[in-house]
């Protein structure tokens, strides 16, 4: 107890010093509040995988009531913005110049084949450079075409029966709104940046200026110095997190099906890991310059690509999947997507929380180890 009290006072002193530093250089506050607000705002509105108004060339070589009803369906669809072309060469030129994403080609023999019992061929050309979008567009075309087919057959007194009728149930996000999964994922990416940005330079700065050594000759312990660095930035970071969640729920209308307390608890764990990573960068680098370079390289792109926020981890090769385990954002993304969209799924929450605790412990352990070594 007697040893504990002065320790607490020393810690309070350190926290106060760090807080003054935060208030005097407004960039830390900007990092915690402006960065998430600006980024979430741009991304929440800007990023979407739902193709809409896809420019599609329609080439009808010989118009007839049948072709008119098909092209009419494309005209009415919210997915497409049809552009009419008279011949296939002009349309192909447009495809080559990226003016249109695809071409629907009804040849001159389409109507004749249709009446003689078919199957009448419909050609669909797609620009496959962006394979994912091409696949989505092909799916939309198939959807419009399939509906038309059933209606057309009925109008001819025929019935189209497909051997298998697929009834799809997409759980947690039935209208497949990509904002619902992108915004929670973006929160994880943004919080990774905030955590690393806040702390990656603070220790390096003290080493660079020599104030770290001055601190170490005082009775202050290393543990207290680290805690003194961590606590003020943790408070700032949680502020940023609360802002992000509020924006997700109220601005982007992402449903929050799990409980807010679980969300905040896991966020706190994640933030500790992210801050720990920043401290580690700061300790490994000899100066702010290198710390900054390391932060740019090691935080954003890995969190963006390897966290499962947008690319499915399960489909990556085994050795890449193994690497994703050292990316803290990976665990946070899983929890965020589950808690927002599915609810409190405890097996998912617990496994990932444990992983975050382990990562925090490893980062902090390494920071302590490296800091001691540097004195020798």
């Amino acid at each position, binding site marked *: 107890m007697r040893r504990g009290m002065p320790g607490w006072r020393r810690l309070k002193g350190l926290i106060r010093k760090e807080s003054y530093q935060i208030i005097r250089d407004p960039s830390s506050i900007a990092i915690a509040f402006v960065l998430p607000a600006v980024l979430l705002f741009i991304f929440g509105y800007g990023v979407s995988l739902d193709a809409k108004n896809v420019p599609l060339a329609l080439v009808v070589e010989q118009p007839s009531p049948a072709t008119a009803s098909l092209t009419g369906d494309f005209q009415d669809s919210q997915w497409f913005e049809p552009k009419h072309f008279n011949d296939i060469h002009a349309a192909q030129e447009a495809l080559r110049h990226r003016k249109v994403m695809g071409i629907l080609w009804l040849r001159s023999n389409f109507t004749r084949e249709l009446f003689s019992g*078919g*199957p009448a*061929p419909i050609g669909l050309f797609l620009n496959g450079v962006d394979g994912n979008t091409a696949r989505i567009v092909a799916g939309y075309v198939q959807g419009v075409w399939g509906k038309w087919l059933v209606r057309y057959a009925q109008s001819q007194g025929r019935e189209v029966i497909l051997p298998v009728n697929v009834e799809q149930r997409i759980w*947690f996000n039935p209208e497949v709104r990509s904002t619902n*999964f992108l915004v929670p994922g973006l929160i994880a990416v943004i919080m990774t940046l905030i955590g690393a940005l806040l702390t990656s330079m603070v220790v390096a700065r003290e080493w660079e200026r020599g104030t770290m050594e001055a601190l170490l000759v005082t009775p202050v312990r290393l543990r207290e110095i680290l805690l003194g660095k961590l606590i003020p930035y943790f408070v700032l970071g949680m502020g940023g997190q609360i802002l992000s969640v509020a924006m997700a729920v109220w601005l982007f209308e992402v449903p929050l099906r799990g409980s807010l307390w679980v969300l905040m608890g896991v966020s706190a764990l994640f933030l500790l890991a992210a801050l720990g990573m920043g401290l580690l960068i700061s300790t490994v680098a000899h100066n702010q310059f*290198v710390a900054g370079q390391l932060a740019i390289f090691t935080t954003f792109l890995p969190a963006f690509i390897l966290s499962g926020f947008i690319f499915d981890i399960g489909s990556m090769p085994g050795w890449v999947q193994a690497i994703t385990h050292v990316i803290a954002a990976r665990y946070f993304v899983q929890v965020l997507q*589950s808690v927002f969209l599915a609810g409190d799924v405890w097996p998912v929450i617990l496994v990932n929380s444990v992983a975050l605790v382990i990562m925090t412990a490893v980062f902090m352990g390494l920071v302590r180890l490296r800091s001691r070594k540097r004195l020798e």
Partner: protein
Amino acid sequence: MFRRIWALVVKEFMALLKDKTSRMTLIIPPLFQLFIFSYAASFDLNQVNYAVYNQDPGIASRELLGYFKGSPAFKLTATLDHLGQVAPAVNEQKVLMVLNIPQDFTRNMLEGRSGQLQVIIDGRNSNTAMVLLGYINTIVTSFSTQWSKDHGWASPPTELKVRTWFNPNLESRWFIVPGIVGLLTLVVALVVTALSVAREREAGTFDQLLVTPLHPAEILIGKALPGIIIGLAEGSLIVFLTVNMFGVPMLGGLGALYLGMGLFIVSAVGLGLMISSIAVTQQQALLGAFLFLVPAVILSGFATPIANMPELVQNLTLLNPLRYFLVIVRSVFLEGAEMSLLLPLYWPMAVIGVVTMVIAGWLFRNRLY
């Protein structure tokens, strides 16, 4: 004059390369990331875990499930025997999808009616769900076609024949890997430049530089050249590896690619120097670098198409050099585009480069905090 600039360039290189950590930072992460990201970043699905709840003892369901088992995209991990097991398996992310086949599946199909196949998909990542749905439809269609043929069903009155240009198998790796070339080149250019002026300002050496006979334009060139040289060197290495290790086809000419890369690096270096000269401390410069880098990557069309963005955001992306470079890299690699076709993409980057350099040079003298 040339010698003065050269002395500054040498000094900048020394600042970047003199210590080991700094040298490693410039070389190791981009190469590692190229390697890892090229394998990681793909929208294609592989070995998706799925479960089957099959109540139908008939042959039709067995044949259909055979199609799924034969596909490399899917991996059967559980066979369920009552409906209550479906929800936990999906909720806990044990499987991404469940195929639910009702009792009367085969009977319906043998009597000329449609069999109902229910697929339950975890929609937490809705893009994965959409891609998965596409895969399922492909498999079901090929099964249906075979069944129609075997059992003498009437064929539908029309058929859709899909052909894709430039990337016939719709491999998203071909789309993503050239994109990574752009991403890493941008990061390298920023890493080299974004902190360089801010560091000298913080250390006070920038004031000293300003009182030397060096003209601000010369300082600007001296600061920009190392970034351009390192950017071009690493960019070339990344392109080389992309072609030779990942087998992405390179249909176009190197001239068209390098003109784009040169202009892109100049614009990225200009942006980096501008950020660096606005900032007073390195912490602020780092913040500035991220405030530019993150939107530049996410709003570049790297993973999510620009065409899907609202008009306002689309207009905003016109200021983003990465947006133009990504189209250039992909067109040159996959479409074999020629320089003349890419002209509308070259000049905006040149404009961004010139404007940001001028602003940076002006700030050298006019921002003495």
